[in-house]
């Protein structure tokens, strides 16, 4: 963007104490959610045993002999990566949702809205079905045909590629009009969704695997997934946060933002690609988990206001907390889809906030 014009924050900077309170309490709540998420599960493990395993394996304190190998496996290789995965995915989706709502100035915008979900779904579906149709593609006899990473890579590539395509189609000179972007995303999504449906029809024995992927789940998140995805989400978050002024400017609309010196078309392109990067990376390891990316930014906007300097980190913290708790609920309820829990928890909360907030009309007008 052009230097020279230093846009002032649209919203008068709130006292630092308010930000500190919001982020500090958000961090504490997330920490609590992590502890509860690791402590509870479908198998009851005494808190002191959990602490003993964590202390031994992570910090090298104490002996492991007092805890059985099975419990150690459950805590270290099942719960810990799953809970951390929920945290990363939740934070990534909430950030991406915040950004898309700002770019598109549309309250219905979520991280999937311009084609990420449809593209990732088609990629994953191809990854699941293709080895069935062409057995030579099955990777490793041991891991059957759901070869390590193939589905994830294709889901990631599908999400990124679809958004690139949408942008190329929607671009009009240097501009990227929101309405065109939305409609193009909708059209491309519909096309890809038809492809997914066709593949599902022809998938035979892989149907259940496709179905499970589309529902979204954190059950299969392992350490490798975390090592790959966490830096991506963290990096995107830092870059987005550094662009908080531009995000705030975009809330004014393309015209006013341009008058204030923002290269609107280019900035929208950058932000869209950043948010899509985070979305595609998280979707690759979790499937399409709905609702978090839509509702968390709204919730936080009602609480902390539309200033992205505070809204982005608060959304990330709360998105992470919501998904950690929702995934715990899903696990405790016998493995129901996590998206169902996020909706059950998040929707009533949003309704309550909407009823309660007198600032709704202004703060929702993004």
């Amino acid at each position, binding site marked *: 963007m052009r230097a020279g014009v230093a846009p002032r924050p649209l919203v008068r900077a709130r006292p630092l104490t308010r930000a500190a309170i919001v982020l500090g309490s958000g961090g504490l709540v997330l920490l609590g959610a992590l502890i509860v998420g690791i402590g509870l*599960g*479908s*198998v009851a493990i005494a808190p002191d045993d959990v602490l003993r395993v964590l202390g031994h394996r992570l910090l090298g304190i104490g002996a492991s002999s007092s805890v*059985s*190998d*099975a*419990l150690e*496996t*459950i805590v270290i*290789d*099942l*719960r810990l990566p799953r809970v951390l995965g929920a945290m990363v995915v939740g934070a990534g989706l909430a950030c991406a949702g915040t950004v898309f709502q700002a770019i598109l100035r549309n309250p219905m915008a979520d991280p999937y809205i311009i084609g990420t979900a449809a593209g990732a779904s088609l990629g994953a579906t191809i990854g699941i079905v293709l080895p069935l149709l062409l057995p030579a593609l099955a990777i490793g*006899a*041991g*891991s*059957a*045909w*759901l070869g*390590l990473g193939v589905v994830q890579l294709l889901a990631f590539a599908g999400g990124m590629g679809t958004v690139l395509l949408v942008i190329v189609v929607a671009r009009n000179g240097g501009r990227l009009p929101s309405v065109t972007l939305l409609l193009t995303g909708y059209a491309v999504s519909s096309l890809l969704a038809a492809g997914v449906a066709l593949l599902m*029809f*022809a998938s*035979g*024995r*892989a*149907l*259940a*695997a496709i*179905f*499970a992927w589309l529902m979204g789940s954190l*059950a*299969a998140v*392992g350490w490798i997934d975390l090592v790959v995805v966490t830096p991506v989400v963290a990096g995107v978050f830092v870059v987005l946060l550094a662009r908080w002024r531009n995000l705030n400017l975009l809330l004014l609309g393309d015209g006013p933002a341009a008058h204030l010196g923002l290269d609107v078309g280019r900035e929208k392109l950058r932000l869209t690609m950043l948010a899509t990067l985070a979305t595609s990376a998280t979707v690759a390891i979790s499937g399409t988990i709905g609702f978090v990316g839509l509702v968390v930014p709204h919730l936080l906007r009602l609480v902390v206001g539309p200033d992205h300097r505070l809204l982005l980190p608060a959304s990330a913290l709360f998105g992470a907390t919501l998904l950690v708790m929702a995934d715990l609920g899903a*696990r405790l309820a*016998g*493995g*129901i*889809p996590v998206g*169902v829990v996020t909706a059950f928890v998040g929707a009533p909360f949003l309704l309550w906030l909407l009823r309660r907030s007198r600032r709704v009309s202004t703060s929702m007008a993004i």
Partner: protein
Amino acid sequence: MTPRRSSRVLLLGIVGLLASCAPGPSTSASFEPSTSPSAIPASTPSQSAAADYPLTVTDDAEREVTIPAEPERIVSLAPSNTEIVCALDACDRLVGVTDFDDYPAEVAEVDRVVTMAEVDVEAVVAAEPDLVLAAGNELTPSAVIEQLTDLGLVVLVLYPESLAEVTGDIELVGTALGQGEEAAALVDDMESRIAAVEAAVAGIERPRTFYEVSVFEGTIYTAGQGSFLASLIDTAGGMPVTGDALSTSIEIEELVAADPQLILLGDATYDPTITPESVAARPGWETMTAVADDRVEVVTEDVVITRPGPRIVDGLEALAGAIHPDAFAE
């Protein structure tokens, strides 16, 4: 139960249904009682079984699985696997089963590690199994099989796609459990009963047989082409009416054109409102020969017909009896 949850259960049930009826690889089309690739010769002596460990077997997913010692703690991720273990006198070694398990009665005491078709991996690990019997064809999701294997568990995938592969799997599990003799005796018994059915229906005219798995929102589910169910109907002396190769459903137009001479209502096992009268009242069905000839039959043995365990022979006999009542008159 919330509407969403119940619809998911329904959906999962349908997906499971589809998966279980989906056409298998073309190689499975043969159902001669020849041994399947995974079958271990029944003559394997079990007396010296203790000395055989660690032993390496090949499962139905073509995975080489090494079993380090005689399994004492077994988790079964499918009712058919549970039935095989129990039929081999090893029911007391089960430490985890599914919430669909209903046979034999003593499995009611065993912990559930699969709920609503969802494998609870934590519960499986907590059961500390030395052998996990998974199901193929995504009935146990391959991601879960991978996860369990990565955690160091010994996982054997069973997915029989024909009668011969059921007996092959029984022998495979017998070998894995050190119950080879029990397996050989069970397989002998099953094979002689299969042979008896084959002999009884040999040379008799084979009616075009439509087996109704379920009807949901106007979609009619039946045996897929080349599926286990289709091969079972064939062995029982019927000509299976199936849909497209890709699908386990059949269009009503195709069904009318195929004109089944016999309609078997497997779904009547679970839904008493499905009767020959209700079927005759469905639009388009009255033109079928089976309806005109009054050969629409309620089948109450759907569980054993569609569950590829030791009781599959009961299912075969029930099918054969329904298709050829005269040949099995007494």
